Every structure is written in C-alpha cells, then in structure tokens.
C-alpha cells in the first residue's frame, strides 16, 4: 500500500485505523507515511476508510488556517478526504502479506481463500474431525499484533516433531516446503502478516501434550496466540471428552462455535459418496 503524497493532506484519520499502527504523519514532509516493514498489506486503510475527493491544496489551506486559529474541525473519523491511498502491485514474496492479512484477498500465493479452512464449521459434511479426534487451530498475531512468518516456523517444527497431521488444505500448510518437518519456504520467512492459522489434528489423548507444547514454544515467539480446539459431540450432543481436559489445564471455556449437524451433502457427484462422517462409531460413543 502507498499514500500518494500529492493527495495526502495529513489529516491523520488513517493513523488510527491501521491495525498494525504502521501509518504516521511524517513531520519532515507533513504527509501520512507507511512503515513498509510493519505494514502487512491488510488493506484496512484502503477498503475501510470511506473517501471524499476534495481538492488537496484547498484542504491544506483550510487546515492551516484552522491550525493558526487553534480551531478544531470535527470531521468524520473514517474518511480519507482526498482518496490518497493507492494499492501497490505486490510481488512475491510480499504478496504473502496480503494473502494472510486482507480477508478480501484471494490467495494468489497459495491458491486457497482465507486464513484457514472450514474446520469444524462444516464438520457435519466433511467429517474432518472424527470421533476421538481433536482439531487445533493455532492462530498467531491476532488481534493487532501481527507475526513474522519465521516465528511461526518455531511452532511448526515443534509440532511436526510431535508427529501431528497438518491440515492439507490450510493456506499455511501450503507454504511449507517440507510438511513432514514443518519447514516453511525460505523466501517467505521474513514476511510479516496480520494473522496466520496453523491447523492440526490429533487424537483426543494427545490434547494435553499439544497444549503443553504450544505453551512451551510460545515463550520463544514474539506475538499473541489464540488457540481453538474443535471436537465431535456424542449422540446426545454432549461433549465430555475434551472439555474436562481443557478445564484441568486451567482453561475456562467461555465461548465456542457449535456445529448444529444440519448440513448434508447435496452436490450431485459428492452425493454418490457415503455420508459416514455423520456417524459416530457405536463402540466409541
């Protein structure tokens, strides 16, 4: 992203809306400026700010007069008055920043849309997390901290060593040059993104081991981590396997996403396939 200095009037509205705090008014040129190292190409400034198309010299003159008179104009805070933001033509590997930061972006870099997959949200039709399994989403950088991809590799290395299965369709898995070791492509390591989600699946019995591993590695990762744990409910809609483990580890389960089990396969080709994912094996209920 860039700010056209011929248009910018240094109103400062954009400095507040950047999730990474990467925009500031440079006093030497009196224009809003983007710190390119910190910018994750999320496009919140470009898409989120409404725009006017005012004449920049006139706006600057008015601002100067107001400043001289110590007067405060109280405009709307979510407007760029001169539409000064202009997208860059992003090249590899910088385009990875946008792919993992701008939710509207299609993943030209990975071929997958979004930061993660459908995970348990469509588990009733995909059967991705089966009875006795746990799907982890380990999200780095959100909210508003961001993460260098090289930091995430510390986690993927440790997880691979523990023998987990990385979700194949996850965009971050597609950045791995060697999934068996959790090694990422070297050319993306020095890119910073707003958030990235590592998705894995393990047996229920490994839940505690994975959480302890995450807690250990996160000491060496300079960002925030949000952990999500998805699992199947039993035939009565209850979940008595994973919750007790999480509570024993000190987590208070306040919020969850609940799949109601109302989905079914309706695409014609897929309809020919069996719907066994919806079945809970009777011997393990």
């Amino acid at each position, binding site marked *: 992203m860039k700010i056209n200095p011929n248009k910018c009037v240094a109103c400062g509205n954009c400095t507040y809306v950047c999730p990474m705090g990467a925009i500031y008014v440079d006093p030497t040129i009196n224009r809003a400026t983007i710190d390119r190292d910190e910018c994750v190409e999320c496009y919140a400034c470009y898409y989120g700010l409404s725009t006017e198309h005012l004449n920049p010299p006139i706006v600057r003159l008015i601002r100067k007069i107001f400043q001289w008179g110590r007067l405060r104009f109280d405009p709307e805070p979510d407007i760029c008055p001169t539409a000064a933001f202009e997208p860059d033509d992003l090249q590899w590997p910088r385009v990875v920043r946008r792919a993992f930061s701008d939710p509207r972006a299609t993943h030209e870099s990975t071929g997958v849309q979004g930061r993660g997959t459908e995970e348990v949200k*469509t588990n009733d039709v995909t059967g991705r997390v089966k009875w006795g399994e746990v799907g982890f989403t380990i999200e780095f950088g959100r*909210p508003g901290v961001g993460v260098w991809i090289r930091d995430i590799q510390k986690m993927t290395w440790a997880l691979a060593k523990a023998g987990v299965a990385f979700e194949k369709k996850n965009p971050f898995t597609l950045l791995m040059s060697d999934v068996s070791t959790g090694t990422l492509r070297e050319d993306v390591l020095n890119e910073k993104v707003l958030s990235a989600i590592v998705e894995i699946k393990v047996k229920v019995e490994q839940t505690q081991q994975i959480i302890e591993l995450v807690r250990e590695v996160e000491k060496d990762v300079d960002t925030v981590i949000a952990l999500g744990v998805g699992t199947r409910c039993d035939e009565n809609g209850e*979940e008595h396997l994973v919750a007790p483990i999480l509570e024993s580890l000190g987590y208070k389960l306040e919020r969850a996403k609940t*799949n109601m089990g109302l989905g079914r396969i309706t695409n014609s080709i897929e309809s020919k396939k069996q719907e066994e994912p919806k079945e809970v094996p009777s011997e393990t209920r």
Partner: protein
Amino acid sequence: MTNTLHRYGDSESFRDDYIVFATPSNDRNDVNSIPKLKKFLEMALPFKPVSIGDPVHGGTLRPARNLHTTSNWKRDMTPDFRAVIDGIDTPASVVAIFDNQLAAKQFLKLVADADLGLSINMSASVEGAKECCHFAGVTRHSVGYSLGFEGSTDKLPNSQQLKLTTMCGHGMVSASLAKKMIDWVKEGRRTPAQAVTYMARFCSCGVFNPARARRILDEARKKME
C-alpha cells in the same frame, strides 16, 4: 476461519452476542447454495438481527467510495440489510447476529425446520449455544472451543478495546480506532451509536456486533478498565 471464535470477554459479556452462520462446504453442498444463503438471511429478518453479513461484500454498514463533503454533518448511518441479501453472489458463510437469546433460538428453530442442507453454526457462549440447541431440538454435532489469548499478551490493548476489536475476527478494527472511539464517547464528541458505525465499516464480513459494541462504549464512558 475462526473469525468469531476468539471474541474477548467472559460468558456474561456475550449475553447480547449470538451469531448464527450458514456455511456451504466446498465440493459438498456449495452448488446452488446461493438461494439457500439468501433464504437463510431472509428468514433471520423477522427476528430483528442487529447485523447480517457476507464475507465477500461485507455487512449492513459499508464504506462509501465517493462521499460528499456534507456527509461530515449529515451522514446516512442506517444499516442496509437489503443490500447484504441482494448482494450475495458467491457460496460463502453468511451470518446473522442477534443481541438476545430468545431471537437467536427462535431463529435457529426455524432454520432447523427449513432443512436448508447447509452447515449451521452458532458462535456464542458455550452455555448460551447449548440452550439454543435445546430449544430448537437440535443435537450438537461438533464444538470448537476458544481457549483465549496467550503468548505475548503484554502486547494487547486493554480489555475494553479488546472487546471491541475482537468483534471483527479478521482484525480489521484497530485498537487505536477503538481507543479513539472510547475517548470520543467519553468526551461527548460522538454518541456510542455513532461511534459504532465507524468501527463496523471496517469489519469486512459483517460479524461486528453493533449492539454489544454500543453497550461496551457506554460502559467505557463511565468506567475505564
């Protein structure tokens, strides 16, 4: 996507936050799903959702590309529910957000009876969602728990800002804007209702809950956490 899972707060703070999703699954039930997604949102309207949204085009409040200067004094802050429904053109998760459990559970029951064939999820407090399922006669299939934030949590803003920013799960509502809006409401420069519209426009999929945000801003006006 975990875009509504990691909202910050305890169960009590989610009392006015019930999000119901309809999600088509790639290669499984996405064919001809657009009319179903529209129907899902149409069915939500009688229950007065506080917002609806789709991840491709956004929610009921969207940025404008060509505002007139007079909008600084007289801006249309009305959420446009019709634009969301009419604009759906891609098979992707759509959401309806409610500020009370009664509406959410009655809507869920209607959706269950309608048998759309799409995956239906509710993002809410664990107990709140369970109560809705019980009311609607739905047996939970899977559950995804949020374990909250860990790691370098010293980099996070204060809890009121976090409650606001995490309502856009893609992280598009910045902590600086949330702080600015709290400050403006405290100073009386904007009402909570006005401040909410500015933040909501940054949420690109419409999951930002304006009712909860108004309450948080109103609480922050009186007491800073």
